[in-house]
């Protein structure tokens, strides 16, 4: 008996010391954190990172976002995309790797969603001016001539020469539904590969992508905005190393003569989509895919979207209908989602 007592003593000491060490560890990762909020890519971005290179990572992440904005913005007159939109009708324009990749993948999402997403309605988006000081209700006479059936099929890409050519004068590229997702993926890749970041959260205007789990090993708690009170969450999902992207009709809109006009346009009509949904959230691994699908499924409406998302692997969705009902796809069974790749 007496010989066992020292072992018990050793166990007691080890247990107690470990408790201090573990508390100190999570504290230490938490203390090596950096966070910043800025307006970039025509939205508000918050990037929070943990680890030794957190501050350098945050700086590099915002620089990356600004670099991508200078390529992909459809509103900035100095951007590469803006220049392409002015010159690519009936003329093949050579573009950067980034612009070619984003165009190629965005057009692929347009085809896969059968035009529920159409990134060639740039001229119609410009008429509405959502999110700018020029937001207004355009007339039907302005919209109708710009409606191009499956405009995404009116773009010619030449992979060998890396050129883009528009086959119709009424189309312009607008990556409002894919650029932030692409940026989130690129920033995450850079932070993991070049800065060794294993713990962080990138929030580009509500497009969220997480790196690993939280500093305390728990999954990240991501709130889905309540469309009726945008300061509150209607549902919380817990994700690890995944992305969550929402398209909602409460984010960018204006009210004219008592009618609310939101920014998610139905490419077939040129007017705000009226599909019976207030918001759709996509949870998956790739943020560009999530970005594209959140817009496309909003336009499709609940029934069609539910079936479509269920047909995809490792993609889940949360739909909020106009009457406030929350509908989740079958992969979200216990409010927890983890990407299995």
């Amino acid at each position, binding site marked *: 008996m007496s010989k066992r*007592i020292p072992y018990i003593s050793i166990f007691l000491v080890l*247990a107690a010391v470990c408790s201090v060490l573990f508390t100190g560890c999570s504290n230490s990762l938490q203390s090596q954190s950096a966070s910043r909020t800025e*307006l970039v890519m025509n939205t*508000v971005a*918050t990037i929070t990172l943990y680890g030794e290179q957190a501050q350098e990572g945050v700086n590099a992440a915002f620089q990356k976002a600004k670099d991508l904005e200078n390529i992909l913005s459809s509103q900035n007159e100095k951007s590469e995309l803006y220049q392409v939109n002015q010159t690519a009708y009936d003329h093949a324009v050579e573009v950067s790797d980034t612009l070619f990749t984003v165009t190629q993948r965005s057009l692929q999402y347009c085809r896969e969603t059968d035009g529920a997403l159409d990134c060639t309605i740039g001229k119609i988006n410009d008429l509405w001016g959502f*999110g700018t000081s020029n937001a207004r209700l355009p007339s039907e006479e302005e919209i109708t001539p710009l409606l191009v059936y499956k405009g995404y099929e009116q773009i010619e890409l030449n992979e060998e020469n890396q050129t883009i050519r528009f086959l119709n004068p009424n189309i312009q590229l607008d990556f409002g539904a894919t650029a932030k997702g692409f940026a989130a993926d690129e920033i995450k890749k850079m932070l993991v590969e070049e800065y060794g970041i294993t713990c962080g959260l990138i929030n580009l205007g509500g497009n969220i992508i997480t790196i690993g789990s939280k500093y305390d090993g728990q999954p990240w708690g991501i709130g889905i905005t309540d469309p009726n009170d945008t300061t509150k969450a209607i549902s919380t999902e817990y994700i690890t190393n995944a992305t969550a992207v929402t398209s909602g009709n409460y984010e960018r809109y204006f009210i004219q003569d008592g009618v609310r006009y939101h920014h998610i346009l139905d490419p077939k009509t040129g007017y705000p989509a009226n599909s019976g949904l207030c918001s759709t959230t996509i949870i998956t691994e790739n943020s560009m895919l999530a970005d594209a699908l959140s817009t496309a499924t909003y336009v499709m409406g609940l029934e069609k979207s539910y079936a479509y998302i269920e047909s995809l692997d490792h993609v889940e969705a949360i739909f909020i209908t106009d009457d406030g009902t929350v509908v989740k796809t079958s992969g979200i069974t216990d409010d927890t989602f983890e990407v299995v790749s």
Partner: protein
Amino acid sequence: MTKKVKYIIAGAVVIAVTAALIAVWILITQEKVSNAVANIYQNGTLIRSIDLEAVEESYTFQIEGENGAYNTVLVEPGYISITDASCPDKVCISQGKISDGVLPITCLPNGIVIQIETQNSTSSTLDGMTR
């Protein structure tokens, strides 16, 4: 039980209790540093910081921008909001009051961001919100 064993046990208990107290102290002090400071940015530049926990009486002030642009900010104990603005969409007003760092108030047309910085967060709070 020999005297030596008794000393070992007594020593172990003292170390264990001390370590446990240190762990508890770390956790308690973590919670105590938590506060809420609202940082107001205009076109990316920090123009004002307000400790919302130190606010005793509500007040408003105006942020002036280019070409007559303005946003009226209401500061209340623990909360901050935009109550009036020159922007056409008024989304910043409809975002309502905020009291934590989960979601900033944004006025894109006027380039205004109000973000609450908290010194600490716990696993039970939201880490972000999609919208």
